[in-house]
């Protein structure tokens, strides 16, 4: 019997929020090391939303966004996806490669840099999750796509849709000087894995 997001109690949501918090903290540290600059972050927000409201988070279903998707295997199976607006992605690649590019478009170098950031962020999230739960987790290579928010979001929504009518995402703001990079992080355990995850955290 799988657990769906619709049934989570407030303690379980708090635990998920804390995982997001620790994961994002580790990610900010890793990012900061990579660019040798101080990175601050706002306290991550954990949102549990109805499908129809998800796309509004990034400004609507037709806004162009970047998604970086990973598969997770090991003691639990599932997926991870990062989603950011094109603007945030551009800011991030400018930071990473110490360049000033006012243009809107992203080139292959930018995509490659974003995949690398995705690797670092997902690695940070997963290692904190692994440390907290004692579960062994392996993350796949990243797959990146740039398209309409609705289309990119259809992937996590479908995965969540197999067990319920809501999605969970963690909103994180990374801050470097005047640059705000806003990212949304989806952790999507497969149907049976959600229970394993919550059990290992001691909240079932």
């Amino acid at each position, binding site marked *: 019997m799988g657990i769906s997001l619709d049934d989570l109690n407030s303690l379980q949501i708090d635990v998920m929020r804390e995982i997001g918090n620790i994961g994002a903290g580790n990610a900010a540290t890793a990012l900061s090391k990579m660019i040798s600059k101080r990175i601050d972050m706002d306290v991550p927000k954990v949102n549990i939303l109805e499908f129809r409201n998800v796309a509004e988070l990034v400004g609507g279903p037709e806004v162009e966004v970047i998604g970086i998707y990973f598969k997770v295997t090991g003691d639990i199976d599932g*997926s991870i996806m990062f989603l950011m607006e094109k603007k945030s992605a551009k800011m991030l690649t400018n930071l990473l490669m110490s360049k000033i590019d006012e243009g809107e478009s992203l080139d292959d170098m930018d995509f490659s840099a974003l995949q690398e950031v995705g690797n670092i962020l997902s690695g940070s999230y997963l290692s904190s999750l692994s440390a907290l739960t004692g579960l062994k987790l392996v993350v796949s290579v990243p797959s990146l796509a740039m*398209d309409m928010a609705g289309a*990119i979001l*259809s992937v996590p929504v479908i995965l969540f849709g*197999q*067990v319920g*009518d809501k999605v969970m995402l963690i909103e994180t703001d990374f801050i470097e000087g005047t640059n705000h990079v806003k990212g949304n992080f989806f952790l999507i355990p497969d149907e049976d894995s959600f229970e394993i995850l919550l059990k290992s955290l001691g909240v079932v």
Partner: protein
Amino acid sequence: MTDLIKVGMADMNTTNCPGVLTTLGLGSCVGICLYDTSTKISGMVHIMLPSSAQIKNNSNLAKFADTGIAKLIEDMVRMGAKRSKLVSKIAGGSQMFNFNDASDIMRIGTRNVTATKETLKQLNIPLVAEDTGGNYGRTIELYSETGILLIKTIGYGMKQI
């Protein structure tokens, strides 16, 4: 300009002529458009998954190809559409992320399209046009006045089917 009637994810809607139905940013989901060629009554459903059969929480009929299409027909017939005059056009079913091992869940777009076609066939609704597959998102608009389905993309142009 007629107002667009929005159809969200796992959602459906119907209209009389000259209403325009739209769903924004279709990815691996499939947008199924039904059109009554005699009364011009139109309907659209945005399904996410192929079948309600293996899913426990299946109360939202618009989420699945099998139940979504059946419910849409029911709603349209109630509005006065003729069951025998219904035709269909479908769009969507992309694979947004590429992975070498094509696990079931990554091929969900293809599975959604296959299930949609099977359901339409079982229900005897002719499929007159489709724009499915690929690896990009689509916004679709169904014009009840003409039955034309307009498809917009980022980087893959615009077309009518």
